């Protein structure tokens, strides 16, 4: 019997395994893999005890108070993304390159004799 790899057991435990049924069947039959799974679960269970501080019942209101003065009058519209500085700079760069290539082509072109 082929035992499950660590990768398969972790994927199963985290709910991202592709062969869930196969792994489940194997686990019910194989003590060694069950023990391995138990060791993985023990570590994850310990991590689950790490506390997250409670920011307080009023936290949402505090966040709003902090950000409200910094909000623009109107939220951004989808087309405004095209006018973001980095996009404008990129577009400007491309236009400059095209113009430079065109000018260079005009300057270096040798007149063709007929």
């Amino acid at each position, binding site marked *: 019997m082929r035992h499950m790899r660590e990768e398969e057991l972790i994927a199963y435990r985290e709910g*991202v395994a592709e062969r869930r049924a196969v792994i489940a069947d194997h686990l019910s039959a194989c003590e060694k893999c069950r023990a391995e799974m138990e060791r993985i679960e023990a570590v*994850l269970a310990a*991590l689950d005890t790490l*506390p997250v501080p409670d*920011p307080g019942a009023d936290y949402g209101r505090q*966040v709003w108070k902090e950000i409200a003065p910094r909000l623009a009058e109107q939220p951004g519209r989808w087309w405004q993304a095209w006018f973001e500085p980095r996009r404008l700079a990129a577009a400007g760069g491309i236009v400059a390159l095209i113009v430079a290539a065109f000018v260079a082509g005009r300057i270096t072109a040798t007149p063709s004799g007929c």
Partner: protein
Amino acid sequence: MTRMQQSVDSAQAIAESDALAVERTLAGDRDAYRVLVERHSHSVFRLAYRMTGNRHDAEEVVQEAFLRGYQKLGQFAARANFGTWVYRIAANYAIDRMRQRQKENALRETPRVEDREGTENDPVNRVQDEAPTPERLTQSLELRKQMERALAALSEAERTAFVMRHWEGCGIEEIAGVLKSSSSAAKNTVFRAVQKLRHALQPFVETKAQARAMGTES
């Protein structure tokens, strides 16, 4: 229906629906955005804290996520879920913040002492059935330090993938979106994170089988 009644109904509808609150915000009603901020702040804080490992950075991430959310709200349009969307913005900003912190720490050349909450939040202190013995308390604090160290030793991508999958229950596609990777790469990152955590922490963690053998299982 009176104008006042209409106004009350509208406020109630916004309070119930994220989609409507987004729509109202886009129409210029800033109060509708306040509803979204107040509704989702706690869950975004939880994600941010788990990713950054400290309260100060987490609070900054929350504020920045909602600010960016407001600026980009037009791009959100009528997409499925505002909560998921703002989560993604927060996760992306938290990754930037973690990178920045790493650079700052590298410059200082001393490991940053994370300003986690004091012992009042320690799991061992929340056990009500028995007072922790000094030995148990020491073990618990040591384990907690080891866990924090192990999490801090993960790469930003690994920590993000682990937090989003294990603690926040996000889908692999969503994680892949934040990491800007393929689904299989995101899955692999979750695996690597758990593997690293396991190898770092297993010597400190008692399994159920060990607990049964020792007769200490609760």
